């Protein structure tokens, strides 16, 4: 009976393990940092993690559809540099919202470029988005060669310290993302997405518009990367063309820790969101455990590898029984 339950949990709810991991991470973090769940700490943590959470959600859609998007960091950088140079520290909030809208269009367009090459020209996703990541990162550097610029303090403040009903803004954003995802999953498009990611050839033979679905995942990922770029710009308040470069691989790790398979067709968006939060908490734990600075990278990376390995280890032992 127990065997059935475990297998059912792991196959039907790939995010189940991510949930356990997240719970565990929260407990350890709470022990090391007892004020973790206080409103201010919660807010200051969540607003830092939100950009990567949003990015992971977009990455999850691409990976579910059987692809991968290495260029998301570049899109984040483009959005950051656009906002920082066009709005400016003295800019008006109105201008900010105009350029936020423009940023979303830019994100969609960058995603469409990826989608065009991958879905319509049928190039290999990893190398294509690697190539476009140079295009995007280069473009960001072209807009803003040296770190600088900024956005009005009032707008940044809005992101940093809005907490309706005592809950940080990030929770509402996550709720909207998950709500949208659960709606999408129930639509025909949602079914297509899983079909394409699971086995594109079979999906094609059963009249699923494979190319259009693949294309759409990159556009979604591009738009999410733009949202992520907007969030990180409002968090930092300034511009830096290199801001997104370290975020790409983190977003992919978050997706996998969240139980969404790299091979596509298995998983969801809720898991990767939890995975992104877990990554943030691991960073927190490493900082609060007072580990020697030299050891921090090794400890953090080892925790991540162990987290990735645990489902496999559990399965190994279960097979032996």
């Amino acid at each position, binding site marked *: 009976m127990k065997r059935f339950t475990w297998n059912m949990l792991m196959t039907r709810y790939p995010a189940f393990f991510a949930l356990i991991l997240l719970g565990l991470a929260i407990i350890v973090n709470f022990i090391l940092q007892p004020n973790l769940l206080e409103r201010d700490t919660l807010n200051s943590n969540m607003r830092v993690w939100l950009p990567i959470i949003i990015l992971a959600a977009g990455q999850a859609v691409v990976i579910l559809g059987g692809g991968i998007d290495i260029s998301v960091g570049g899109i984040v950088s483009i959005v950051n540099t656009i906002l920082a140079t066009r709005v400016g520290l003295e800019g008006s909030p109105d201008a900010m919202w105009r350029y936020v809208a423009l940023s979303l269009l830019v994100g969609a367009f960058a995603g469409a470029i990826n989608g065009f090459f991958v879905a319509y020209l049928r190039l290999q996703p990893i*190398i294509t988005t690697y190539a476009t990541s140079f295009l995007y990162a280069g473009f960001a550097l*072209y807009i803003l060669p040296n770190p600088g610029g900024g956005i009005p303090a009032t707008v940044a403040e809005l992101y940093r310290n809005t907490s309706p009903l005592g809950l940080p803004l990030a929770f509402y954003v996550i709720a909207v993302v998950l709500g949208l995802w659960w709606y999408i999953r129930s639509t025909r498009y949602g079914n297509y997405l899983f079909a394409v990611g699971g086995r594109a050839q079979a999906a094609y033979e059963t009249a699923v518009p494979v190319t259009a679905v693949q294309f759409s995942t990159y556009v979604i990922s591009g738009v999410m990367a733009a949202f992520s770029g907007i969030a990180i710009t409002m968090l930092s308040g300034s511009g830096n063309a290199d801001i997104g470069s370290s975020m790409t691989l983190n977003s992919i790790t978050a997706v996998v820790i969240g139980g969404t398979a790299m091979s596509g067709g298995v998983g969801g968006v809720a898991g990767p969101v939890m995975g992104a939060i877990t990554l943030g908490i691991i960073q927190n734990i490493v900082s609060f455990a007072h580990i020697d600075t030299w050891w*921090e990278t090794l400890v953090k990376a080892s925790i991540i*590898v162990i987290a990735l*390995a645990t*489902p496999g280890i559990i399965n190994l032992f279960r097979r032996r029984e």
Partner: protein
Amino acid sequence: MKRFTISPPVAALLLAVILFVLSGLLPNGFGSDMSIARAQALNILRLSVFLGVIAAGQTLVIISGFEGIDLSAGSIVTLTAIATYVTVNGADEKVLPALFLSLLIGAFIGLLNGAGITFLKISPFVMTLGMSGVVTGAIIIANHGNVSGKVAPIMTRLIARPLSPEFPIPNVLIIWLIFGILMWLLLERTTFGKNLFAIGVNRVTAKLSGVNVTGMNLAAYSLAGALAGFGGFLLVGNTGVVMIQLGQPYLFPSIAAVAVGGTLLSGGKGSYWGTMAGAIVLTLITSLLTTMQMPDSVRRMVLGATLLVLISIYGRQRSLRQ
């Protein structure tokens, strides 16, 4: 209805030659001075060796299929470069032990990758990415601010210098050629190579035909690690100094070199000749962009666009409609 086709390695090499000739017409190019042209060509070839060797392991794991990829190659290169640097410490007789140490370190990390991928069913991308983080962490601890060491004179002579003044072919190119022949023999003339392609095409049929898929996978990743270790050994012989980010810039270019060389990233099809040609093309483009004195931003965009064009030529996957 036989279509005119040209094999990817040849296409990449042709492209490299055309680009090189065109680069001579640039304002600061070699123009009609043949001795400068030859020196430039040899230098670019020499620089390609490091990317080419690092991409050798990448070729193996990519051919082995099942989303095979090695993102730890960059950090293995750095680690073995540091290990070589410290072990050799200027002594010629320590070079061989350092080489073995590099291969061993690389193979061990590769074996860990392979074990995680085969036994724990972690996808190669994240397994090797996580391992890259662990190795980087180990490098930071080992480095602890500073390392003291020195490259041995014999390494500089073998890697960075030409054969003789009358015959100015860099030694390392000859090493690379022998290396390429060995890689070709390994892939095309051994059971290991046949099995590697077999598991790359279809793991189930390979297993049913009696291929030890688990063993092959472990071997492929260990060998890839060892080859990255060899890359680190060569690289430090060229640079003569080590730094914490020495290998990382070679990571994604090594994947790009494999793709440009016509090896399918989904596995089962490819060659090391292609990777060698890919490494030459990529090194050529990068050094051309550097000599053209463009701002960094434009350089990156041109590199991205060129890569896109390159993979559009023959990196296309099979059409859905058969």
